[in-house]
C-alpha cells in the first residue's frame, strides 16, 4: 500500500438551511465549483495531475444528482481529463469520498484526487431521496425502520442521559465554536461563498448561537416525541424490549443544525507532491466503514473507531484529537463513555450542534477542521468519524508528517 497524503483542504462557511439562509440562492454544484477553484488557485495547481474528484452527498437527486462531481470539475475549469464520481453513504458521504480517493491512491491506481462532500439542505427537502429502506413497507418493516432522532433519544434512554446531560453538551459545543471563531481557528480553510456578482454572500458559520446556555436550551420542546407516538415507539419496543418508554431528550438545540455547505480535501501520493511542488500536511493513516444496529442507527462510531484503530495498528490512547460528528448530543456522550475519551480531546472547536451538519459535506469538513487544529496545537494524530443512517459508521485516522 502506498502512502496517501493530504496536501490541502478547504470548506465553505455553513449557511442556515432554510429559505432565509445566506446560501439558499447558491446551488450545490456552485458550492463545489467555488471550492475546486479555490484549491486550484491556492497553489496554482495543474489540475491535469488529478485523476478523480469524488463528491459525497446524502441526497444525490435532482440538482444534487447526475454525478454532481463531474459537473463541478468542468464547471470549475479543471482539465477535462479529471473524472468525477458521486458517493452516497448518508452522513458519512463526505468522509467516504475522501476514503475512496485514498483507496485509489493507496492501491497505486491513481496519483492524486479530490474527495469531498456537499449538501444544500435549504434547496432540498429532508427525505428527498427517501429510498426503500424507510419507505417500502416490506423493507421498512423488516429493518425495524425508525427515524434517526428517535434513535438518538433511544441512546439517551438506554445509557441514562438526562435532558440536562445532552443540553450541557450542546451548550459546550456552542461555547467552543464561539471561541474557535473569535480566535480565527477556521480562517485558514474557510472559502467565503460568492454570489452571481462575485461578491461575498457568506463568510462565517451563520447557524451558531453563541449565547446559548443550558437554561435557554431547556425551554425547547422534544423534537421526536410526536413521531414516536405515531407508531415508531412500538417499533422500538419490538427491537428493544427493555424499554418501557423512550426518554425524548433531543430538541432542535441539542441536535445537529440543518445547513448548506461543502468541503473538499486534496489528496495525492508522494510523486504528486514532487510533480505539483506541494508539501504534504498529513498522512491518511487508516480508514474504515462498518454496519451497526439499524433501528438505533447511531451507535456505529464505537465499532468504526475500533476498526480504524485496528487498521492503523494503533490504540485509542495514541489519538491526540477526536472529531466525531455531533449528529445528536447523545451520540457523542455515548462515544466518550464507551471509548473512555476525555471531553477535552473531542470536538474541541465545537461541532454540528453549534455550526450545523450539511449531511453529505460534514465528513470532509471536519477532517479538515481537525487537521488545522493538530497543526495549531502541534499534535500528531486525529480520528474523524461519523455515525451514518440505517446503522453505519465511517472513520479516518490522520497523522501529521
Amino acid at each position, binding site marked *: 500500500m502506498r502512502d496517501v497524503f493530504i496536501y490541502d483542504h478547504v470548506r465553505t462557511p455553513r449557511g442556515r438551511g432554510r429559505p432565509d439562509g445566506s446560501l439558499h440562492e447558491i446551488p450545490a454544484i456552485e458550492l463545489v465549483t467555488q471550492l475546486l477553484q479555490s484549491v486550484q488557485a491556492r497553489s496554482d495547481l495543474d489540475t491535469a495531475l488529478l485523476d478523480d474528484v469524488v463528491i459525497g452527498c446524502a441526497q444525490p437527486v435532482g440538482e444534487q444528482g447526475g454525478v454532481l462531481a463531474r459537473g463541478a470539475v468542468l464547471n470549475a475549469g479543471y482539465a477535462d481529463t479529471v473524472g468525477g464520481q458521486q458517493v452516497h453513504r448518508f452522513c458519512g458521504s463526505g468522509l467516504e469520498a475522501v476514503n475512496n480517493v485514498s483507496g485509489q491512491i493507496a492501491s497505486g491506481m491513481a496519483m492524486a484526487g479530490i474527495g469531498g462532500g456537499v449538501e444544500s439542505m435549504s434547496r432540498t427537502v429532508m427525505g428527498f431521496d427517501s429510498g426503500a429502506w424507510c419507505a417500502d*413497507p416490506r423493507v421498512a418493516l423488516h429493518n425495524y425502520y425508525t427515524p434517526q432522532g428517535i434513535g438518538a433519544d433511544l441512546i439517551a434512554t438506554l445509557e441514562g442521559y438526562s435532558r440536562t446531560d445532552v443540553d450541557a453538551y450542546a451548550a459546550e459545543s456552542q461555547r467552543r465554536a464561539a471561541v474557535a471563531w473569535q480566535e480565527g481557528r477556521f480562517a485558514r480553510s474557510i472559502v467565503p461563498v460568492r454570489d452571481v456578482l462575485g461578491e461575498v454572500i457568506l463568510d462565517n458559520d451563520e447557524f451558531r448561537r453563541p449565547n446559548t446556555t443550558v437554561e435557554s436550551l431547556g425551554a425547547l420542546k422534544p423534537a421526536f416525541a410526536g413521531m414516536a407516538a405515531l407508531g415508531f415507539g412500538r417499533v422500538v419496543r419490538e427491537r428493544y424490549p427493555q424499554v418501557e418508554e423512550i426518554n425524548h431528550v433531543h430538541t432542535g438545540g441539542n441536535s445537529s443544525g440543518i445547513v448548506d455547505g461543502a468541503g473538499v480535501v486534496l489528496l495525492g501520493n508522494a510523486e504528486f507532491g514532487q510533480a505539483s511542488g506541494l508539501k504534504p500536511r498529513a498522512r491518511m493513516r487508516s480508514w474504515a466503514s462498518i454496519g451497526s444496529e439499524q433501528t438505533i442507527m447511531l451507535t456505529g462510531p464505537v465499532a468504526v473507531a475500533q476498526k480504524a484503530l485496528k487498521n492503523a495498528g494503533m490504540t485509542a490512547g495514541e489519538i491526540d484529537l477526536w472529531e466525531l460528528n455531533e449528529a445528536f448530543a447523545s451520540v457523542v456522550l455515548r462515544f466518550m463513555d464507551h471509548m473512555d475519551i476525555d471531553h477535552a480531546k473531542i470536538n474541541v472547536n465545537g461541532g454540528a450542534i453549534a455550526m450545523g451538519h450539511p449531511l453529505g459535506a460534514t465528513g470532509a469538513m471536519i477532517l479538515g477542521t481537525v487537521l488545522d487544529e493538530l497543526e495549531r496545537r502541534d499534535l500528531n494524530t486525529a480520528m474523524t468519524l461519523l455515525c451514518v443512517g440505517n446503522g453505519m459508521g465511517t472513520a479516518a485516522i490522520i497523522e501529521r508528517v
Partner: protein
Amino acid sequence: MRHLAIETGADGVAVLTLDNAVESMNVVSDDWLDEMNAAIAQLRDDAAVTGVVITSGKKVFMAGADLKALVDAYGTMTPHQAYAFSQKATAMHRALETMGKPVACAINGLALGGGFELALACHYRVLADDPKAVVGLPEVNVGLLPGSGGTQRLARLIGAQPALDLLLTGRSLAPAEALQAKVVDALAPAGDVVAVARAWLATNPSPVRIWDVKGYAAPEQRMMIIPEVAMGFSVATAKVVDKAGYNLPAPPAILSTVFEGIQLPFDKALSVESKYFAKLLTDPVARNIIRTTFISKQAAEKGARRPAGVPKTHFTKVGVLGAGMMGAGIALVSARAGIDVVLIDRDTATAEKGKAYSANAFARQVARGGMTQDAADAILARIAPTDDFARLVGCQMVIEAVFEDVAIKAETTRLAEAVLGSDAIFATNTSTLPISQLAEASARPDQFIGTHFFSPVDRMGLVEIIKGQKTSPATLAKAVDFVAQLRKTPIVVRDSRGFYTSRVFRMMIFEGVAMLEEGVEPARIENAARSVGFPVGPLALLDEVTMELPVKILDDAADAPGNTYTIEKGYAVLKRMIALGRGSRKAGGGFYDYPAGAPKHLWQGLAEEFPVAGEQPPQADLKARFLYAQAIETARCMEEGVIETAEDGDLGAVYGWGFPAWTGGTLSYIDTVGIAGFVAEADRLAQLYGARFAPSAWLRDKAAKGETFYPAKKG
C-alpha cells in the same frame, strides 16, 4: 344461468340481477364467476345493449366470498394455485370494466368484500340511502386482502392513503360517509337505485376507467421521489406495527400491495395484488382467524354445543339475583335481548342501583347517537328492580350473581327455588366456585348450571357454560338457547377448579410474576406479552384484577385434596407486593404507578424488590413462554375432559381472555406450530424454566401419532 338474470329494456339498458339460486345471499363462487363471464360476453356481443346496470335480487347486494370455502386453503393450496384462484376472479372484474359498454352498479343493500369489489369494477356506483346499506372491504379482519382488484381500484379512485385507511381498518361506511369518501358516486332511496343508474347511462358516459385512459398516472405513481408520499408510507408502516406488532401478515401485505401496485400499470398491479393475496390465503394466520373468529364462532352461536332433541326455548322472563356489576350487566344484556328481567338484591335501593347501570350505559349511547331515547326507555322498562323473591314467579331462568361465598349462594338458591316453576333452570355466574358443590343447595341439581359471564358483560361476547355433575342435557340446551338469545358466544365446559378460562388465564399472569421472580426486567415482561399480541401485559393485568384475587384462589385450592391448581413460581412476588400495600391499582398502585393526569409507568421500586438479573433471557423465550404456558394448560384441559372440543378451547381463549387471534386460540396454536415441534419446544422450555411447560404423556402420545386438535385437511 342459475344465479343471474338479464333483462334488456327498449332503451338498450340491460339489467343484470344477482340472485343466488341456492343460498340466501349472493356469494362469490366458482359457479358465479363462470356465469358472470358468460353474461359479460353476452352483453358485450349483443349490439342491442348500450349499457348495463348490475343490481341484486336479494335485500343485501352481496356480502363477499364464502369464508368456509377459504378456510381450507392453507395446507391444501399452493401459493401459485391461490394466485390463479385470485386471478380468475380478477379477470372477470377486468372483463366487466373493459367490455366497452358503461356499467352502472345499483347497490341496493349492503356490499362488503367481494360484493363491493364488484361495485368498484363498475363505471358508476349508486348506493341505497339506507343505514343498513354499508359498503367496505373488511378482508383485513379475516387475515386477507381484497383479491379481485379492490386494493388497486380503491387506491386509484380515492388516493393511496385514504384507501389504506379503509383497507387496514376494514371498517364499513354508511351511505353518507361512502359518498363523502367518494367510493360511491350517488345515493338514492333503495327503490330508486336502478332508475338512477339507468339515468346515468342515459347521459352516454365513457366506458373507459381513468386508469385505462392512455397516459394515466396515479398521483402517487412517482412516490419514491415525492418525500411526503414516501414519508407517508414510513409512518403507515409504523402504524401497522403499533396496532398489531409483527404478528399479522395481512396489514403489511395490504400496505405493500398498495405501495407496489400504485407504481405499476393497472394489469401488473392486479397481478401483484393477487400474489400478496395468495401469500395470505396460504398462510396459517388467515386460516386461524377465519376458523376461530368466524366459522367456530358462528357455529357456537347457532348451537353447535347444544344437546340434540331438546325443544328450543325462547326466553321472555328471567331473574337476576344480585345487582352488583355482573348482575347489573346481565340484566342489561337480557333486557336488550327482549327479555323481562326481575333484578333482585338485598334491598330495593341496591337493586335500583343495578338498574341505573343500564340507564347510564344507554344514556351514553343515546348521547352518541347510537340509540334512540324511545328504544332505551323500552329496554329499561323491562328491568324490574326489587328485593322480593316472590316476583320471580314465571321466570324461565334465574341467573345468580351474588357474592362469591358458598353459604350466601346456597341461601339465595333456596329462596329462588321456593318460588320458581318446576321447569325453570338455575344458573350461577360464579367464576371460581365448583358448580357441583353449589348445586348441593339445590332441590333439583339437574336444573342447576354455571354461566360464567365476563366483565364488562355488555361488551364481552363469551359465556362459559359449566355443566355440574348432575346438570341435565335439557338444562344445558336451555342455557345455550339463553346465551344465543343474548347474541353471545357459548362454550361448554366441565366443572373443575377455575373451569376452563380462569384456569388457563392464570398461566398468563403467573408467567409474568415467575419472570419477575427470576430477575427479568419488568419492561421486557410487559413488552414480550404485548409483542405476541396480548392487549395488556401480565403485570398491568394483575394491577387491574388485584393480586389478592389469585392469591385467595390459590390459598383456597391449596386445602383441597389432590390439588393441582398451583403456581410454580411467583407466589412470593404476589405476597410481597400485597405486603408492601401495592396489591393493585385500587390500592393506589401495584407493579405500576398511576400518577394523576399522566400515563402509568412501572414502579421504580421493582428493581429493589426483585433485582434484575445480569443476564436476561432471550426475548423470544419470554414470548414463547406466554403462548406455551397457556397452550399446554389448555391441552391438559382437553386431556382431562374439562373442555370437549378444540373449538370451545379456542373460542374461550380468544374471546374469554384475549389470547392473540392470529393464533386462532391455544389449541389452534399447537396445531399451527405442529404438535411434534410444539412438544419439543415445550420440553426445552420445561428444562430451562420449569415443569409447568412439560408435555403430558397424553400430549406426547398425540405427537407421536401425528394427531392434531383439528382434523387435518386433505389437499
